[in-house]
């Protein structure tokens, strides 16, 4: 029991936060194991940033118990602060200082000695591909460079737990991939990452565990696969060249042939190999010719739609507009 407690980087029980009459967080429970990536997924206004602000000691909770790195955020904020690093949604670099000066400022504030500070600054500038721009003021940096400098400054203190509030919002796809790689490398080094994102793809790519936050409540919590399984709709889609084959297949699989004139048959399946093999075996036994086969597994878009009932506010990175509620997201295998 005690060991289990120690291995928790973050534990939150019954967290509530209201601003005046507005309830932003309405009873959140979270447990995050050390050394994992946890993603808090939700649309704008769901309460993601508020959660990060409470966990990182910026604002107090209205109710509930929050322990980060084993310390209560209300009772021992300085011990929490010593263990965490926070990179927020809005860049927290000093525009009037150069990249290197920004890092050295952090070194001083983390109370590193001069030599150690310089060494680590050089190391981080290299690692984040900022060495060439080290002598320029941060005001001249591009969006991607600022994010990298921002994160490098946070890492100066070697945080055990890293909070990243929408770390890739507004980045171009290349910068985003680079940021993802950096995050993965950090976790490989033992850091715990608490990530918020409104990008389903990002949570899917990075996170060991995902919690879906909607209007101040957690509506789901699990691995990406577990979440996808919550959503009905896994099926195999079979394509035929002529109606006769379609009818034969429907008979073989015990399905009613579709009413429309199409050449596509949807067979419910859980997406696993076993059910796929069973379907193919049955078709083989009846010598039915299949032109094409696709497996549809629900992605996090579907999860989001099902759980929250308002799909339009969650987006893929790069989506210019709102709609991702389309039902046709078959992925060829």
């Amino acid at each position, binding site marked *: 029991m005690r060991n289990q407690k120690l291995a928790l980087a973050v534990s939150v029980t019954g967290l509530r936060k209201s601003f005046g009459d507005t309830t932003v967080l309405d009873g959140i429970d979270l447990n995050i194991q050390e050394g994992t990536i946890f993603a808090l997924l939700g649309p704008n206004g769901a309460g993601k940033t508020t959660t990060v*602000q409470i966990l*990182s*000691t*910026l*604002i107090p909770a209205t109710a509930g118990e929050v322990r980060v790195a084993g310390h209560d955020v209300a009772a021992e904020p*300085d*011990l929490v*602060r*010593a263990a*965490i*690093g*926070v990179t*927020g949604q*809005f*860049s*927290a*670099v*000093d*525009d*009037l*200082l150069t990249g290197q*000066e920004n890092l050295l*400022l952090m070194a*001083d*504030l*983390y*109370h590193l000695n001069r030599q150690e500070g310089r060494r680590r600054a050089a190391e981080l500038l290299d690692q984040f591909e900022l060495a060439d721009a080290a002598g320029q*003021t941060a005001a001249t940096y591009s969006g991607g460079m600022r994010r990298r400098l921002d994160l490098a*400054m*946070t890492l100066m*203190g070697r945080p055990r737990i890293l909070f990243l509030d929408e770390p890739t919002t507004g980045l171009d796809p290349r910068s985003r991939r680079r940021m993802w790689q950096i995050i993965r490398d950090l976790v490989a080094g033992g850091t715990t990452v608490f990530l918020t994102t409104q990008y389903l793809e990002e949570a899917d790519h990075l996170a060991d565990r995902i919690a879906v936050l909607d209007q101040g409540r957690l509506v789901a919590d699990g691995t990406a696969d577990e979440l996808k399984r919550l959503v009905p709709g896994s099926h195999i889609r079979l394509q035929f060249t002529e109606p006769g084959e379609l009818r034969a297949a429907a008979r073989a699989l015990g399905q009613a042939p579709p009413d429309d004139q199409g050449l596509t048959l949807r067979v419910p399946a859980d997406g696993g190999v076993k059910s796929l093999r069973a379907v193919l075996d049955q078709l083989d036994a009846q010598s039915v010719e299949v032109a094409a086969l696709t497996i549809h597994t629900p992605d996090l878009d579907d999860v989001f739609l099902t759980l929250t009932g308002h799909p339009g506010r969650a987006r893929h990175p790069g989506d210019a507009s709102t709609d991702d509620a389309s039902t046709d997201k078959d992925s060829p295998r």
Partner: protein
Amino acid sequence: MTTSSYAIRDSATMLRRNLRHIQRYPGMTIGVLATPVFMLLLFRYVFGGTLGAGLGGARPGGYISYLAPGIIVLAVSAASVSTAVAINMDMTSGIINRFRTMAIARVSVLTGHVLGSVLQTVAAAALVTALAVALGFRPTAGPAAWVAVIALVTALAFALTWLSVALGLVAKTPESASNLPLPLMFLPFLGSAFVPAQSMAPGLRWFAEYQPFTSIIETLRGLLLGTPIGNHALIAIAWCAGLALVGYLWARARYNRAAAR
């Protein structure tokens, strides 16, 4: 290390940061100097003849000597604007939240600003004093009086800086932060900086006699030129201490309350 030695170390780090800002952004320093220099030239060369004659020729050193102490105080109050703007820019950018989530002495963010601003302000006051001397101001102060002058100017700078820090924390944008301290800049005009309070209309005269800058200016004038100080010195010290305390408490309350924006 103990908490208090961290507070000193962190404040020194923040001071270095703010001094570098001053160096990187000289426009702000020039802005700070422009107002008192412009007023000095305006009142020396444009209004000075008439005002000097109106005050009576009996004053030693002519109008520039009456004017200079007021201009020095104006230099201090004009610097409030840059302090308020600098604090506000920090508060409205993301970097303040970074500092708040680090295990550093919280107050160091503010003390770093205060120390940097006081240094900048005292330097500006020294430059303006030198310019006044170049334009004919002849102070008669001895070494002890000069020390007292420096102490008073520093005390005033300290008090107005804390007040400006609070104003910078209250303001929602850097633009409004640059407007809020303007009353501080106007107060010397409604005091004895340019003409004696006795020469003003009755209502204004009452205000001029009791507002903080008059006592401070009269004390400074007495130290620099040997005019009678009376109880102005005590009142000036009380005002500086009071304003500093109010500014500090106000700033601290706002700083602790200001949630992430």
